[in-house]
């Protein structure tokens, strides 16, 4: 008859959880990156893997060393450092000197994330901070593009890849321009099919549009990000560039070219969608996406740089607190709809 008194757990309501966890979501995002990584390896061979390893190592090492979370290494469990490293690596050019890639990972986590207190506290997308830092620090190295490889050259690695730390990576004879560069400086558009299939020069992750779109659809379906962000960005880029194109089809690129070229797809799917640095409410998300789209078109068509996705996202990251402020949910029973 006597039953043991169960040792009762005292935690306040609610007692049920939906069963999603942050590490789980991160793992899924990393899984959704795998096809893009594979595409990068397919087009750029071993050097792609090397760059990705270097950035990821840089990111992980910094998180391990500098994160205030104790015991050491616990901060790595959420997987965000790996994700940052991989995304950073995918927006770097193949054949970049590995010490630069490593430095990028260090800066991304150290400056972009830990300085603000770690995961969830950063104001700018860490991977983009790393990328923008490298771009500003080593403009030449970051804009030296090797032509997309062929299968036979899978194992070939640029000689500059292994440059000693802080030393220049000697520039190979073969270098080429990205479709956006060609467009900007020579006004020649690369066929859209080539852009989507990856037959063009560019950063590791950005050349093969089809893979990114497929992964993006997967992530939207799994609700790993707010689908509104990429939709808003791509739609606004298409809309703004269409307006310009209609007025001056000779000198300006077509909307299709704008969508397919450069880091737009990659940025819209993997970088702008970082929940920490994008607005939280749907209305704010639309503003954010349209803002990114408008800035991309502005910088690409009238700016001094061929590509503006990175800066566009960083600038909108900066505006995110303000957007959040004006797009707060209204509160039940407040505002117009209240009886």
């Amino acid at each position, binding site marked *: 008859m006597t039953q043991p008194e169960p040792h009762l757990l005292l935690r306040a309501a609610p007692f049920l959880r939906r069963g999603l966890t942050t590490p789980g979501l991160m793992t899924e995002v990393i899984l959704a990156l795998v096809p893009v990584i594979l595409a990068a390896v397919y087009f750029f061979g071993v050097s792609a893997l090397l760059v990705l390893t270097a950035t990821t190592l840089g990111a992980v090492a910094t998180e391990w060393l500098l994160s*205030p979370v104790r015991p050491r290494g616990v901060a790595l469990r959420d997987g965000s450092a790996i994700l940052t490293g991989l995304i950073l690596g995918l927006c770097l050019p193949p054949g970049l000197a590995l010490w630069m890639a490593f430095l990028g990972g260090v800066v991304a986590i150290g*400056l*972009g994330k*830990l*300085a*603000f*207190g*770690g995961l969830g*506290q950063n*104001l*700018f997308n860490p991977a983009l*901070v790393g990328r*923008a*830092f490298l771009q*500003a620090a080593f403009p030449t190295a970051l804009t030296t593009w090797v032509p997309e490889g062929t299968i036979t050259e899978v194992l070939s690695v640029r000689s500059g890849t292994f440059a000693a730390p802080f030393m220049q990576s000697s520039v190979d004879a073969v270098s080429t321009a990205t479709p956006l560069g060609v467009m900007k400086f020579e006004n020649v558009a690369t066929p859209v099919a080539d852009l989507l299939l990856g037959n063009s020069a560019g950063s590791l992750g950005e050349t093969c549009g089809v893979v990114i779109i497929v992964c993006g659809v997967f992530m939207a379906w799994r609700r790993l990000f707010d689908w509104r962000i990429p939709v808003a960005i791509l739609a606004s880029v298409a809309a703004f560039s269409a307006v310009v194109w209609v007025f001056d089809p000779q000198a300006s690129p077509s909307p299709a070219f704008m969508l397919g070229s450069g880091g737009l797809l990659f940025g819209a799917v993997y970088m702008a969608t970082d929940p920490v640095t994008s607005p939280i409410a749907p209305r704010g998300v639309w503003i954010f996406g349209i803002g990114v789209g408008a*800035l991309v078109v*502005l*910088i690409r068509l*009238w*700016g*001094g*740089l061929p590509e*503006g996705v*990175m*800066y*566009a996202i*960083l*600038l909108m*990251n*900066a*505006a*995110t*607190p*303000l957007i*959040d*402020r004006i797009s707060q949910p209204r509160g039940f029973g407040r505002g117009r709809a209240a009886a």
Partner: protein
Amino acid sequence: MNDLLWIFVSAMVINNFTLYYFLGLCPFFGVSGQLKTAFRLGLATIFVMLITSLCASFLNAFVLPHAPYLKLIAFIVVIASTVQFVEMLIRKLSPTLFRALGIFLPLITTNCAILFLALTQTSRDYSLVQGVSFALGAGSGFTLALVLMAGLRQEASLASVPEIVKGTALNMIIAGLLSLAFMGFAGLFSAV
């Protein structure tokens, strides 16, 4: 027309006074803790810059050719007293506007951005209209940077920033990243 647009855009985002020339950092870091104050200070700055630009054009046309060594002193004295005068005028005419912007006016006068505006306008030989465009661009660029900074700082104030980064170091890092983001505007409209 393009020329005016370029002067405006250049002063506003490409060579943003704060994020590119490091001007007006005292109010930039001092006032950007609160969004509302930041915005008001920005508006007040636009206003003072307009007055400055007009004053500088006037001095350049009528006074400085005769006494170039007086440039610095003339700018400071004339601009400060004009702003003082306008401040009194506003206080008389619109107490509401005075409460919103007026208290900032004397503060801004001693801001290096104002003096820089006058000096640059002079050294670039801007006409009156160009000067106004320059002042408007610089002012709105300052406001933009200030408001963005205020938003970011308010957000960061909720974050668990490490003790050794807190304070000025964090502000510097935020400003640095903002300045990095603004590099995207480099060369904007220069080809037009």
